[in-house]
């Protein structure tokens, strides 16, 4: 019922591929309400993470997260870079030294990660950002932990919450980030950062549910 270090690496590897596969889609989203670079930025950053992965194979989970965050920080750029870097670095702090993690650890890590993004980006729920996907996911995870559900169930609920949050960004008028320059015109389009965050969590569910008992 635990997520091992190797499963964390498998998740990252899978997500690197998900980003590669969704690069154009994320670019499309970031064209409607942005500057058309979110897909390329994420792809560049996660390809750099891929190159670093051989060196992470013996590391603890916290270190893997931290190194991923540091790599993203110097390769992604834009708004997404520091925010995703913060996500991974803050999560990594919570997971320091661990070789396997339970749902509760994952909930704590995701909570710290999301709080880090809020701390840096100052976004609130409903501002039409990645927070709109991450925050409900954190809540769902905490709830899952409180209800003592299985890992699979917890991952499923948080992914569903993230997906709903991502879709909920569609009608919103952006109040943070580049989309906010468009004012009312940002409504009717799904937020790119919320989409990539959802994909991150969905990939976690797909990777960790398969191998959990």
């Amino acid at each position: 019922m635990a997520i091992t270090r190797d499963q964390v690496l498998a998740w990252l590897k899978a997500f690197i591929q998900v980003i590669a596969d969704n690069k154009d889609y994320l670019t499309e989203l970031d064209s409607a309400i942005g500057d058309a670079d979110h897909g390329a930025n994420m792809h560049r950053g996660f390809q750099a993470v891929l190159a670093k992965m051989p060196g992470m194979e013996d590391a603890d989970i916290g270190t893997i997260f931290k190194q991923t965050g540091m790599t993203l920080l110097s390769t992604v750029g834009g708004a997404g870079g520091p925010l995703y870097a913060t996500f991974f670095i803050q999560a990594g702090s919570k997971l320091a030294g661990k070789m396997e993690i339970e749902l509760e650890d994952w909930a704590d890590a995701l909570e710290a990660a999301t709080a880090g993004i809020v701390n840096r980006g100052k976004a609130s729920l409903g501002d039409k950002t990645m927070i709109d996907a991450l925050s409900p996911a954190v809540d769902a995870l905490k709830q899952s932990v409180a209800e003592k559900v299985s890992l699979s169930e917890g991952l499923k609920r948080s992914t569903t919450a993230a997906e709903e949050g991502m879709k909920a960004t569609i009608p919103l008028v952006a109040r943070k980030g580049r989309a906010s320059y468009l004012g009312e015109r940002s409504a009717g389009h799904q937020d790119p950062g919320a989409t990539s965050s959802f994909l991150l969590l969905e990939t976690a569910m797909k990777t960790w549910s398969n191998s959990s008992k």
Partner: protein
Amino acid sequence: MKKLINKPEDVVVEELQGIALAHPDLVKVHFDPNYIVRADAPVKGKVGIISGGGSGHEPMHGGFVGKGMLDAACPGAVFTSPTPDQMLEATKAVDGGKGVLHIVKNYTGDVMNFEMAADLARAEGIEVESVLVDDDVAVQDSLWTAGRRGVGLTVVLEKIVGAAAEAGYSLKEVAELGRKINSLGRTMGMALTSCTVPHAGKPTFDLPEDEMEIGIGIHGEPGRKRMKLQPVDEIVEMLMEPILKDIPYKAGDEVILFVNGLGGTPLIEQYLVFRKAHEICEKNGIKVVRNLIGPYITSLEMAGTSITLLKVDEEMLKLWDAPVLTPGLRWGI
């Protein structure tokens, strides 16, 4: 997509190689992390001035590195804020012992990446101050937005602040000057077309043949309003109105009037924009004492223009007039 490029992912590095080959007398180019630095950096005893931003706005910022303007510029991927390691290394490279000023355009990514870099630089013992540029009147500065964008005024600010540093101003003084400039400058832009980011392969947005976007920025994103195309005189009225009334500029004010080409608009049209903007200033009793006309802060091949006004005093004019020697701006040397 029609561009003179090789592979999209190599555009920035290849451009930097081109710059290194073209201007070895003025700048050095550092790779991994990428930054452009003036050839004689660090200039001992002088405050270092750095800026940075996504590529695709050339000549800003790399084209403004040299004597009298920027000591270094950090180029990100196209339209993407550079990363803290770039600004950290650039800060160290221009540290002449008197501190370093970061000129930061107000975009979420630029602000966060520069902030992290400033923290890292301070941790290494370098005094760093930041000046935020948020001159764009197209966006409301409110709790409901990410704040006003840093656009055309950035060029003018970099020139004046660069001259101040060259003249021996302290870090505190250049920062104050920068903030003063930011408080006295306003910009508004419009576009006839979008632009195509290399890896995206197509224009960021489509504009019908008879329409234009008012209130655009420099990253190819749509603006505030889409309207039917008008004659340029009416367009200039539309741009000048919010610029004039924001601070507001008043009769008797002396200004620098900067008409910027966004990349795809020919110079002949930029002079038509200038003509009307100048007329509107005069009609309002605002004296245009200096001007700049040309593609200085671009958005790849976007067709369009932005107008910037900066209310100036004697000190700012003196610094504006001071010699500058960079690939993108040169006078007095």
